């Protein structure tokens, strides 16, 4: 490089020394922050390590979801590299602190001296009934060393158990499964008397005396801690939780209980440990936050996990599971028995219901048939009645017709008779007048007797003739001929009589004529009389006939009336019969409906009862299933083999220091950004100022990079000098100044 050019560069730096120093200073500052904080962190780590070594904090701990036993402790101790294995027990207890119920973690001190609390004051508990507490408790309760404290006797630790289970890294307490539940109140008491509500027919019994209660027995709890009253002998710091004690170094606390107490193993009665704490061989020289320590711990964890964990888990699981399973299986057997019994009762009841249904159906069919028959019979009877009525009505009509005909015949006959009578009467009057004349003429010579005989004979012949007219038979004709011969005789007798009478009377005139006409008149009168006789007889006969016909008609009417009466009687009887039949049917139907209703009610009741039963059954089954599910929940015993990182206060110290370390790294970045901005403005100002000069260099034939080089050298030199210079001097000067900040947790 051009010597003169270099000269220019250095003279430029010299001239712009203030800017150069500004860049240099800001870089140096960033590095100071970085180195200072880093060194402080390292010292804090060392102090923590010393403390943990001194208190013999565990290197590895084993937790199990089902707790750990002495066999587990032995098995763990036998693993290569394990120096000490110590079964530990802790449990949450409650106590009254100044009127408030608060919780405390009651920790059994390790027989092997692990996790030794750090004594602030007093001396560690040595025998039963002694207790060490934290400063926090003494301050909260106002008590002092030598005072006593009393914890609640806590038999049922369910509420705590849940809490503890949530605290994943400390599954403690008795590791028994907990399928225990309060026996629930009885379902609607079966004692409520299966009443005889359906007492009528088949006595359907739908009230079944079932019982679906399941009880899963639990074992009685015994208190883990022998005494409840302790004497405070020491004020200590829990090495597992150095952050939960005022005056210590960590920034955060995640304590779940209010206080921590320590008692001797003599006070603790347990077969199950909540944890096993171990120390490993050959770790005392290692820094506990170092990678070497972590490697050694991880190797041990790996050994435990691969060599014994699975088989110990299985063993523990088997024993816990066996106990729990037995309890539940017993309960299930009892339950199944109860169910079988109840199920049988229900199926019997259902059979009864089916039987009743069938009977009802049969009854209904029968009743329907009966009803059909009865109605048919009634209908037939009624039809018959109607027939009778129709016949009567026909007879009545015929009678009416006959009567009308009779009346018209009678009327016509009377008229004929009257006409004939009139003719007869006229003829008689004429003849009588003629006869009277003759009588007058003859006077006392009138042959009265012959006359009367003549008339009488003529009348007889005429009557005989007239009467015989309608039916001429030979006998009658012969009689009539005889009569007529007699009449002719008579007439001759009369004429003779008359002629003699006329001669006697001296009747001048033509006597023959007179006699002829008188005879004629006599015969005429006799015929008239005969006709009258016949007419009267005819009249009489006719009247007799009419009367007979009328009698017949009235007889018919009487008969019909009789018929009506008997029909009415029959109808009334039928009505009564019908009413009776219908009433009977209605009653039968009603009865059937009642039977059905009853059955339906019985069935509904049965269904309801069965539903209730099913509900309870389901409940019971669920309860069992829950219990089984809880068994499933027991899962496999799960071991958690943890290093110290599982301790909140241990890992939070680590993370807190890491955070500080991160700040130590972030700081220089911040400064670097500032330095970047400072040098950027500085350099752009410089370039701006030297624009003319840059042109000159360009004109002289300097390349762009050669020209830029000048400014790069300027900037790089400033920052490297600042950063590098700071780094070399800080390493030695800063460290001792902050190393004393974490020598002891609290004094």
């Amino acid at each position, binding site marked *: 490089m*051009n*010597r*003169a*050019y270099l*000269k*220019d560069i250095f*003279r*430029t730096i010299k*001239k712009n020394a203030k800017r150069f120093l500004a860049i240099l200073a800001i870089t140096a500052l960033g590095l100071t922050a970085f180195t200072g904080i880093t060194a402080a962190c390292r010292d804090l780590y060392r102090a923590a390590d010393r403390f943990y070594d001194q208190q013999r904090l565990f290197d590895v701990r084993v937790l199990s979801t089902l707790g750990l036993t002495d066999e587990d402790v032995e098995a763990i101790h036998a693993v290569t590299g394990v120096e000490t294995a110590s079964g530990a027990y802790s449990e949450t207890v409650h106590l009254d602190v100044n009127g408030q119920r608060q919780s405390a973690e009651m920790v059994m001190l390790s027989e092997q001296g692990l996790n030794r609390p750090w004594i602030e004051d007093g001396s560690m508990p040595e025998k039963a009934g002694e207790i060490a507490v934290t400063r926090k408790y003494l301050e909260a309760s106002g008590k002092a060393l030598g005072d006593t404290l009393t914890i609640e006797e806590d038999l049922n630790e369910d509420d705590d158990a849940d809490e503890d289970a949530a605290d994943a890294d400390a599954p403690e307490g008795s590791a028994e499964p907990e399928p225990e539940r309060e026996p629930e109140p009885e379902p609607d008491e079966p004692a409520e008397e299966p009443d005889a509500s359906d007492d009528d027919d088949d006595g359907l019994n739908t009230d079944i005396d079932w019982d679906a209660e399941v009880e899963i027995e639990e074992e009685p709890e015994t208190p883990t801690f022998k005494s409840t009253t302790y004497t405070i002998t020491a004020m200590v710091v829990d090495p597992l939780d150095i952050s939960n004690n005022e005056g210590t170094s960590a920034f955060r606390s995640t304590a779940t209980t209010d206080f921590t107490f320590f008692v001797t193993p003599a006070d603790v009665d347990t077969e199950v440990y909540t944890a096993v704490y171990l120390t490993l061989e050959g770790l005392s020289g290692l820094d506990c936050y170092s990678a070497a320590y972590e490697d050694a711990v991880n190797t041990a964890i790996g050994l435990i996990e691969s060599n014994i964990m699975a088989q110990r888990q299985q063993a523990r699981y088997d024993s816990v599971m066996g106990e729990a399973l037995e309890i539940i299986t017993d309960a299930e057997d009892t339950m199944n028995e109860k169910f079988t019994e109840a199920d049988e009762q229900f199926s019997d009841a259902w059979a009864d219901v089916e039987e009743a249904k069938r009977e009802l159906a049969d009854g209904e069919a029968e009743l329907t048939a009966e009803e059909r028959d009865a109605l048919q019979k009634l209908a037939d009877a009624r039809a018959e009645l109607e027939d009778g009525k129709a016949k009567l009505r026909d007879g009545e009509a015929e009678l009416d017709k006959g009567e009308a005909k009779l009346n018209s015949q009678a009327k016509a006959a009377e008229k004929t008779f009257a006409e004939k009578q009139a003719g007869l009467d006229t003829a008689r009057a004429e003849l009588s007048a003629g006869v009277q004349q003759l009588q007058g003429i003859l006077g006392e010579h009138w042959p009265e007797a012959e006359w009367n005989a003549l008339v009488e004979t003529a009348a007889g012949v005429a009557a005989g003739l007239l009467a015989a007219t309608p039916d001429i038979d030979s006998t009658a004709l012969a009689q009539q001929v005889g009569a007529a011969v007699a009449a002719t005789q008579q007439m001759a007798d009369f004429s003779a009589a008359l002629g003699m009478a006329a001669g006697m009377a001296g009747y001048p005139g033509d006597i023959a004529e007179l006699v002829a006409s008188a005879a004629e008149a006599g015969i005429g009168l006799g015929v008239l009389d005969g006709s009258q006789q016949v007419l009267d007889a005819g009249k009489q006969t006719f009247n007799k006939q009419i009367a007979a016909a009328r009698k017949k008609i009235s007889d018919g009417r009487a008969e019909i009336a009789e018929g009506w009466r008997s029909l009415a009687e029959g109808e009334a009887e039928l009505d009564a019969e019908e009413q009776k039949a219908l009433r009977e049917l209605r009653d039968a139907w009603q009865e059937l409906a009642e039977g059905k209703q009853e059955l339906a009610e019985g069935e509904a009741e049965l269904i309801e009862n069965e539903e209730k039963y099913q509900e309870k059954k389901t409940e019971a089954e669920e309860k069992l299933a829950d219990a089984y599910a809880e068994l499933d929940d027991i899962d496999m015993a799960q071991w958690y083999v943890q290093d110290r990182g599982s301790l909140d206060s241990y890992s939070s110290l680590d993370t807190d220091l890491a955070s500080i370390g991160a700040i130590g790294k972030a700081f220089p970045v911040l400064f670097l950004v500032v330095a970047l901005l400072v040098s950027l403005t500085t350099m752009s100002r410089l370039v701006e100022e030297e624009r*003319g*000069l840059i*042109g*000159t260099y*360009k*004109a*002289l*034939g*300097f*390349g*762009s990079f050669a020209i830029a080089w000048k400014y790069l050298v300027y900037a790089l030199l400033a920052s490297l000098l600042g950063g590098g210079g700071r780094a070399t001097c800080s390493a030695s000067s800063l460290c001792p100044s902050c190393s004393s900040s974490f020598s002891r947790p609290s004094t």
Partner: protein
Amino acid sequence: MPYIEFNDIVKEYNTGGLAIRALDGASFSVEKGELAVIVGSSGAGKTTALNILGGMDSATSGDVIVDGQNVSRYNKKQLVNYRRLDIGFVFQFYNLVPNLTALENVELAAQIRPDSLDAAETLTKVGLAERIDNFPAQLSGGEQQRVSIARAIAKNPKLLLCDEPTGALDYTTGKQILQLLQDTCRRDGITVLIITHNSALAPMADRVIRFKSGKVRDITQNPNPTPISEIEW
């Protein structure tokens, strides 16, 4: 074939959408060893032409031929090299590096290329043997311009391009500077181009190039240039 050929050069500046044509088809040529004077009114494009010729700027179109090479086709690296080896610039305000002494200023140029002249010797040549360790701020304008010229010729360039070298100097000093330039041309055979506003200087040139609004209006050749000492203005 002329030594320098400026062939139909167009140079446009684009400033905020407005295109300014600083050169609008300017053409001229100069022969080797000539002293050419470029005159023209302010804004005519003289400086632009000189910058293009010196490889500080590139033309929009047209060719610049120097010693048979087409400079306008050079890439960046070639241009740097061209400026380094072939060109010496002399500016109106000297443009010395203020942090360096007269000698160092000259060395700055001399050390940038091989075959350069000795810096101290060159300064002696321009009459500044006693002032070589002075910083520019300690020198007068004329002295600074001498240092500037020494810096330019120390590179032993093919072309010496001077943009108003006497613009900031008084008459006598200006004359001395011009004398120095004429001597350089005559004695060292370097082709010299001088931009000046002073038309009276035209007779000292072998060739006078007149610019007017981006174009070369006219070129006059002067077979017998007048020595500078005889020119009065």
